[in-house]
């Protein structure tokens, strides 16, 4: 045990040391080149290791995944588009897509609205209480979905009628004289998926609150005073002066949460493993890969996910270009 801890620290030092020596050597080699060439080559020497990592772990696998998605379960022969058609025809996968769509429709919007609301409320408090309340709401962001699952399993726990209910929700429910409900197994109107989304919101709202409230504080006071002098009420000020000025941040939070939700995995995996009709793309991918041991199906799920992400990618690049131009 001690050895592992020690070797971790050693690895950090060795890793950083080796990287530094590597750059130093690269730098020296490049410096031996005649003057003009030194300036030409050096930038590439500086970015090469980073690009090696990105190429090896994202670009090459992305291309290979596209290939694998047209191959069979152990990648030994081409099967054309069979993986895609099989998936899209299967009722289970359609449900999975539908559930993921629900997450995408509900969670980002709810994160923005609730984060904005909580942030505005907390901003009215004295600085001490503001900081304390924001820390409490922000804190779940620090823990893992597994940790959060140990928390929320307790809220949603179910015992058969007659036994003591140790889950908070069922304790409250039965206190009103009703029969206990196995919440996470209740898929009527996707209720269990919504309960999982509540968990996600518990973890994520702090993030949106911190960013949005910082953006609101960054709105120049002059614009607010000008609006007040013109006789605008608080609601108009919020809707017409503040909101337009924090639009950029809202979009950023929205995009970030949307990407996170599209590939949501751990909350669902840990809480239900996709059972009771709560399956989402991330969990389905994992189970295709490790339970069904079907590389082809797993790869084609990733390809579909990546295609769905491309519009966001285009948006990000455009946004970045516009920002660079404004610099």
């Amino acid at each position: 045990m001690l050895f592992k801890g020690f070797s971790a620290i050693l690895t950090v030092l060795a890793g950083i040391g080796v990287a530094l020596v590597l750059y130093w050597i690269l730098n020296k080699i490049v410096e031996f080149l005649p003057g003009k060439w030194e300036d030409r080559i050096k930038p590439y020497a500086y970015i090469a290791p980073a690009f090696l990592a990105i190429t090896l772990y994202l670009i090459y696998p992305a291309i290979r995944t596209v290939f694998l998605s047209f191959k069979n379960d152990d990648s030994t022969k081409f099967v054309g588009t069979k993986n895609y058609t099989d998936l899209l025809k299967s009722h289970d996968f359609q449900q999975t897509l539908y559930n993921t769509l629900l997450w995408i429709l509900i969670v980002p919007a709810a994160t923005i609205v609730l984060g904005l609301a909580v942030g505005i409320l907390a901003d009215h408090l004295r600085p001490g209480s503001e900081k304390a309340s924001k820390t409490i709401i922000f804190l779940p962001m620090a823990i893992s979905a597994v940790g959060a699952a140990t928390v929320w399993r307790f809220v949603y726990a179910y015992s058969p009628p007659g036994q003591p209910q140790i889950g908070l929700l069922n304790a409250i429910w039965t206190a009103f004289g009703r029969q206990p409900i196995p919440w996470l197994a209740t898929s009527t109107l996707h209720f269990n998926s919504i309960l999982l989304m509540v968990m996600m919101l518990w973890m994520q709202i702090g993030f949106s609150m911190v960013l949005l409230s910082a953006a609101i504080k960054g709105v120049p006071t002059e614009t607010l005073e000008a609006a007040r002098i013109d006789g605008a009420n608080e609601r108009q000020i919020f809707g017409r002066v503040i909101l337009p000025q924090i639009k950029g941040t809202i979009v950023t939070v929205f995009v970030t949460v949307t990407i996170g939700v599209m590939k949501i995995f751990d909350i669902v995996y840990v809480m239900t493993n996709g059972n009771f009709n709560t399956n989402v793309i991330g969990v389905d991918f994992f189970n295709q890969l490790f339970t069904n041991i079907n590389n082809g199906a797993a790869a084609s799920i990733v390809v579909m996910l990546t295609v769905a992400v491309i519009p966001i990618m285009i948006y990000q690049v455009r946004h970045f270009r516009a920002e660079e131009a404004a610099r």
Partner: protein
Amino acid sequence: MTATLAPPTDVRPKKKRRGAGGEGGAGRASWPVKISVLLICFLWIVPALGVIVTSFRTVDDSNSSGWWEVFLHPFKYIPQLTTANYTDAIHQAGIGTALINSLAIALPATFIPILIAAFAAYAFTFMRFPGRDTLFILIVSMLVIPNYVAFVPILQLYSQLHLAGTFPAAWLAHIGFGMSLAIFILRNYMSTLPKEVIESAKIDGASHFTTFWRLILPMSTPALAAFAIFQFLWTWNDLLVALVFIGPGENQPVTIAVNNLLGQQGTGWELVTAGGILSMIIPVIVFLSMQRFFVRGLTAGSVKG
């Protein structure tokens, strides 16, 4: 050269004014506002409280009564509280080893990519070379690519190299997956540093290597810290990459260990809750002590947008 060396400690203007909060501004909250914030905080704390309380209760108590009973009948339940769950979780359920494994995975996966990314960010910010903008656009577009694309091919590669299940398997993966974000954050920050610093260093005859090591890296501390916290929390809390590249076994991190406890039928609440709390302690400490950097990293990246 000394005159230009003063590091810009915070490039964002300090915003002490707070007119945009609404009618009253700070400190003059009405009672409904105070009560609603209190209620929201209560809603946030109560679920977590259940885990904390249960982790100190005996098996029989946790199975026969809700954790809130401790507060309703303190004289009955408080004397029975115990720390035995924690020793059991650490020694018998393997959480102790798993915590060490998590550190062994997260520390190298956090610190090694930073230097690599910093060099690249430096080149992207302060050097001119053909293809620079195109390559950076590539980095920006890689930000959103789900790392799922890597799993099948890399897993096949790892099994050929007999890397699957080892720590380096996870380190390398985390380095690859975190790289584009690291470059993006660092480059955004470096481009806000005053260009004159570089110019005067150049005039004084400093090489790029010296400028980077002596000037730019120290000046970028806030961004380096912001990314380090991000990456540490991400790798510590990660379940998916660990499941795929390390899997359950002797090298499993704490997320897998606790997840196994959650999944086992018959594992009592006492181990699950103690294990869960143990898995949260380090990230919560890191988060609370470095919150300032974390928030700055978050806002610096987004508020501008």
